[in-house]
């Protein structure tokens, strides 16, 4: 019973954070609008691009292969993240975890073979 109230009350923190997150930009921007002087010139109105004059359209097309590469990278990145804690705690976890990890690595290996044969790794 008491647990349930604690459980429900802990959402109060979430609500406070939500309210803060919404209010902060509104307050900051509207206060800033009241306080700052407003004297626009042609130069000031141009887009700020780290000091240099803006050129080209901001919407550039990327090669779709970047995304597939990025996906592949993320998958194997996550694999290493999972391998680290297992390697550190290897002594306690024992043989069962070793087998589990082998299954995990073999599954990802099949994924790598799939990507290789589907010519994901080749850059044209």
């Amino acid at each position, binding site marked *: 019973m008491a647990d*349930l109230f604690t459980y429900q009350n802990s959402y109060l923190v979430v609500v406070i954070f939500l309210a803060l997150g919404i209010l902060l930009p509104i307050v900051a921007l509207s206060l800033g609008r009241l306080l700052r002087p407003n004297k626009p010139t042609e130069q000031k109105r141009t887009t700020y691009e780290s000091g240099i004059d803006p050129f080209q359209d901001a919407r550039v097309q990327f090669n779709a292969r970047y995304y597939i590469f990025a996906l592949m990278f993320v998958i194997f990145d996550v694999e290493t993240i999972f391998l680290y804690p297992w390697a550190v705690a290897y002594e306690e976890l024992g043989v069962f975890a070793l087998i589990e990890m082998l299954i995990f690595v073999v599954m990802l290996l099949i994924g790598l073979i799939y990507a290789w044969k589907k010519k994901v790794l080749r850059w044209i």
Partner: protein
Amino acid sequence: MDMETLLSYEWSMMAPEFTILIIATVLSLVDLFADKKIDRKLFGWFGAAGIGIALFFLFSQIGHEPAMILANTYRLDAFSLSFKILLLIGALLVLLMGVSYEAKGELLYRGEFYYLLMSALLGAMMMASSADLITLFVGLELLSISSYILAGTRKKSTQSNEAAMKYVINGGISSAFTLFGLSYIYGLTGSTNLADISREISNIAPENGLVLLSVAFILTFVGLAFKISTVPFQMWAPDVYQGAPIPVTVFLSVVSKTAGFVIILRVLLSVFPFAQGLEANTSLLQSMMIFISVLAGITMIAGNTVALKQRNIKRLFAYSSIAHAGYLLVPFVAFSEMMFESMWFYLAAYLLMNIGAFAVIQVMSEHSHSEDISIFAGLFYRRPWMAVMMTIFLLSLAGIPGTAGFIGKLNIFIGALFSDPSRYILAAVMMGTTVISYFYYFGVMAQMFMRPSGSAVPIRMPVGVTIAMVFCAAGTITLGLFPGVVLDFFQTQFNFAEMFY
């Protein structure tokens, strides 16, 4: 966990799943390395053999004591066994149809079709025999993600791409609903294991947990309604069924739907009968039945009436499958002792008659490169036997005596009337909408028998799809004339009380 506990598990319990897993892995690797010239239809026969082996393992498990392995996440009981038989037979027939599917050369990666089907089947089987919310959800997603890709396997067809896109977006939304509901259940009980949840949930006092539990129930049910394509998540069905290749359409309307009912029964029945309901001495499941019965009623009415206006045969059958999902919710609402029996029997009958009807549709639409209802014109004068089989399937779908569909509907009807309290309004809706459904089923029959046929080109009947068709026709008639054989086997072999912990 150490080596001794690992070896002490009875791994043979998972033999059917392992078979399917190995077949799917081997097929995907062979597809990558095998020469392009090798006919990928061989994969279909290989997969069918694999499902045959899995079925053999499954039948040898009948009568096994209910048991759990892998830290109580995998459960073998009468419930999982009986429904896995349906899933495997359904997938086997879909594979046979897939082997004969040509699709005007639009199926560019035929190998993918077979192993994605196997992985989807594996997901469905995990949904049937898991006793933990996490593995249930992983099974659900394995089935869903494989079916999203399957719906888009006709790569050059814009309709197929549209279907896959709609399916993945709607499916994502509904999965989010389900997961949100499950997270409430976890938050209230502190466990993901169904056995633990069913113990813990009765301790929650109504004044605290009732609102949250009701929200959990509604969210979980609404999310899972997507898989069985009932209101409120039914609108994807016509578009996806129309765009997807016919074998995939069958898979979605039979195997995926059966898996959806399995997970609904498993989750809702392990959790909510033990929670206290809105009134004293009732369970939350009983309090929520009015909600499901309204949804079931709307589903039956919407499915059957909208089907009346369809000219495209795949869309017509999509609405018909929505209506059948509505019929299948009736025994769940009635909640009599016959619930499992009548749901299992109706799912078995629906599997046979729907796969059979789609097998005929596949042959006819491949022959005339169209999906309009007029492709059936004069079929009786060109291929009398095929027309007779289609008639059997349509009569069974409509629920005419002598067919499996009639016995299934009768069971549901009796269950709804003799339950306590009697669900006579729902039974009346079911009766009325069944009569409406006669119009569109008999419309197809009128095409076959009363319209002249346009062309005299002989209709080609490939081996795989013919086997599926004949098997389904024989099954529909057998279940219709001698339902006792199956029902007796069912009652003696499967004890559904095992499902509860």
